[in-house]
């Protein structure tokens, strides 16, 4: 019986393209965030409120990932910022190659911040590096306070957490305190923001944090 020693990373192709993306983003001096969450937690709303609240401070571009439709890109396009929609045709996550191709369509524009809005899914996107500076995980109060414990890899890999829809806390079975405690037990270094895209509560603090990340 003969054995061939391989010892290779399964996702090495993705990782290599992610590194090329990282180099391209760096060359353009971008701050790039990979937004991950379950479907419907408010990724696109966060992007919209961020664009609206920072339009006089910095320029944003957006790569949207969805299984079907360009509805999210249409929403973001209404704000007049560069946006590309990736339709994954069923795939549950974005890969670095898709982001590279999408970035090629907008890179000539002038912007400092790039949002990559991943496919709504708290499982698969955790394993795929896209070349971003950091991951931001978004969880809404309607999802309950146990999600960090159920999807630890996603919360462990993120640098920031946005707890969204805090205006709905009185109506849902979710304790903000428990949600924060669970998140920090998975990842004590998470920066936590509490937001509502309806009342704009907490959006200013989030925008301030992004602002502090830009190197001019």
């Amino acid at each position: 019986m003969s054995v061939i020693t391989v010892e290779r990373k399964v996702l090495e192709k993705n990782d290599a393209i992610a590194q090329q993306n990282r180099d391209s983003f760096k060359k353009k001096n971008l701050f790039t965030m990979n937004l991950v969450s379950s479907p419907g937690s408010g990724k696109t709303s966060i992007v919209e409120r961020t664009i609206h609240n920072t339009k006089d401070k910095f320029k944003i571009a957006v790569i949207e990932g969805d299984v079907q439709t360009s509805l999210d890109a249409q929403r973001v396009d209404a704000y007049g910022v560069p946006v590309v929609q990736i339709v994954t045709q069923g795939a549950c996550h974005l890969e670095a190659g898709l982001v590279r191709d999408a970035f090629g369509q907008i890179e000539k524009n002038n912007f400092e911040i790039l949002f990559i809005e991943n496919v709504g899914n708290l499982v698969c996107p955790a394993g795929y590096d896209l070349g971003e500076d950091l991951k931001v995980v978004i969880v809404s109060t309607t999802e309950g306070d146990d999600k960090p414990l159920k999807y630890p890899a996603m919360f462990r890999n993120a640098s920031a957490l946005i707890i969204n829809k805090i205006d709905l806390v009185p109506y849902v079975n979710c304790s903000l305190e428990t949600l924060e405690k669970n998140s920090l037990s998975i990842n004590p270094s998470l920066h936590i923001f509490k937001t509502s895209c309806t009342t704009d509560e907490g959006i200013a603090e989030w925008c301030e944090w992004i602002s502090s990340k830009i190197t001019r």
Partner: protein
Amino acid sequence: MVNNTTMHELSVAQEILGIVNQYVPEPKSNNIKSVKVSIGKLSNILTDSLIFCFEAIIGDTALKGAKLEIIETPVKIGCASCKKEYEIEPPIFACPICGNNQIKIVSGTELHVDEIELFD
């Protein structure tokens, strides 16, 4: 790439097959016995699903019959205060001895092709 794949175990199976094809470019019929992979418990892979996908995509190829052997690797952390490594059971991410949460994950996220075993 993700084209026409709907679950990430399928795209992972395709990447594994791609790597096998680089090492055994022209496999003779049924000469690959097994492909050994290490999968960390934190890598979000459903092993049954990965085996199913792998067997499905090698169905009518020369790799038919090759087994995907999966070694599940535990999550190991390094504790900043004990200066030692321990196995942990997620979702508890803290040192099992001193309770410190300043820990570094040293293994359990890997997704590697280790070796390919051939019939002689």
